[in-house]
């Protein structure tokens, strides 16, 4: 990684520090609620999903869409950076900004389920949901980076949010999830591992495609 890309990444992470930190705190509070009872487990789980979705939307909106809309992009592109370096830096900074809270909250989720009364059998379901939220983030970032349009950004958010509502019943309808969901041990069936793998690979592919398309654009402002 060259020096200018590193500077741009650090700049973005600095500007997003409160959002990153705040989402980790809010996510941990949501997780802390989950062992307190059935209702709290539901509320905490929904809150955790909401925290990651809000983080997703705000990161992309402030760091990609707004930067272009507010003409801050002119300032950044006036620096000694090529358009490809800018794209790579933007994708890496945003990926770090989301992935760090996502990893912290995913790890905390695993620990919380392991040490609490919540059955460990629910863990594959939760990881499939969290992996989907990572894919959602990658997709929203890719769409916003390529289109740089508030309209497309909003459309992608609506589709993404609605899709989460479909994802949960779809996962809960799969025998591989329901058969062991209340069990004391997490059972990693081929089905659930394939779902998680597809979600992660699709996220990486979306970002790769975004870098390819964005860096080939003739006009950046």
């Amino acid at each position, binding site marked *: 990684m060259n020096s200018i890309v590193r500077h741009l990444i650090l700049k973005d992470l600095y500007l997003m520090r409160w959002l990153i930190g705040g989402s980790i705190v809010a996510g941990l509070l949501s997780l802390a609620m989950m062992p307190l009872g059935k209702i709290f487990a539901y509320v905490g789980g929904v809150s955790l999903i909401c925290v990651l979705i809000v983080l997703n939307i705000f990161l992309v909106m402030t760091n990609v869409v707004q930067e272009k809309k507010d003409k801050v992009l002119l*300032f950044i592109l006036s*620096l000694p950076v090529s358009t490809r370096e800018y794209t790579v830096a933007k994708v890496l900074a945003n990926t770090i900004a989301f992935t760090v809270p996502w990893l912290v909250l995913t790890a905390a989720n695993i620990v919380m389920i392991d040490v609490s009364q919540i059955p460990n059998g629910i863990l594959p379901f939760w990881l499939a949901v969290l992996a989907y939220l990572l894919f959602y983030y990658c997709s929203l970032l890719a769409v916003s980076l390529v289109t740089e349009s508030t309209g497309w950004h909003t459309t992608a958010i609506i589709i993404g949010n609605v899709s989460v509502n479909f994802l949960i019943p779809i996962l809960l309808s799969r025998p591989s999830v329901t058969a062991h969901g209340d069990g004391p041990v997490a059972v990693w069936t081929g089905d659930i591992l394939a779902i998680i793998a597809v979600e992660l690979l699709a996220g990486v592919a979306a970002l790769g495609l975004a870098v390819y398309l964005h860096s080939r654009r*003739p006009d950046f402002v």
Partner: protein
Amino acid sequence: MTTPAIELAHVEKVYRYFRLSDASLRLEAGQIMGLVGPNGAGKSTTIRILMGMIRQDRGEVRVLGRSMPREQAAAKRDIGFVSEDMRLYGAATLAWHMRFVASIYPDWDAKYADLLVRRFNLHPDQSIKALSHGERVKATLLLALAHRPRLLLLDEPTTGLDPVARHEVLAELMDALRDEHRAILFSSHNTHDVEQISDVITFLDRGRVIDSSDKETFLDRWRRVHLDLPPDVAMPVLPGTVDTSVSGRVVVVTTSAYSAEVHAACQQAGVTIREVQRMTLEEIFVANVMSKRGEMPS
């Protein structure tokens, strides 16, 4: 021979409702070029092509000897860019922006940056969103100047500034040119600003470079000549005539090639020259644009 700061050769950029056509420009080191044109003339497009932010469809662009947009990262190490509509991060302070830009440019001159902070009466700890338009322009100019670029590309930097702020900005640009190797391309639709600081002036209209010359040549060769035309005398053809208006016996000719030949032609035709008026850059610009629009295919 030094490398020109800017070379644009037959550059074309086509949009749905705008076309920059066959634009050719050359700016030598140490010169200030004023790029003058009405709104929508193509000034910003030209400057953004020079910055590598927009890729030209045709033609060659070299900035400080680098081919653009391919070598834009290397070229931009020596370019300072300010645009009227450029914004900084609203939530961050000017001091943070100064540290950020300083970390990128090894030639950042901290003493000069501090001097500019004082001259522009800026407050480094103030967040950008709290700055007025004039302060924001001065802040972006500070960030562009303090890394001591060899080339400054300024896209309408004085637009929307009050007279005092405009004076401060123009004075700083003049000061920046004490370095004889530094070049400035300055776009504006305010001919007064351009006239104040430019050595070379280029007129742009509807995506075409319609004229380009050094300022003195423009001011010397453009004149408004008032003639007394007797009833039985035919109007002579004067060199460089771009406009003629008649009011009774008085004929006013605007010429872009004023010289002794104009006097000779009038004398030969028996026409008396009543008055020869110098023209301001704004009058030259408007006359030039109107005459070239008449020649352009619609």
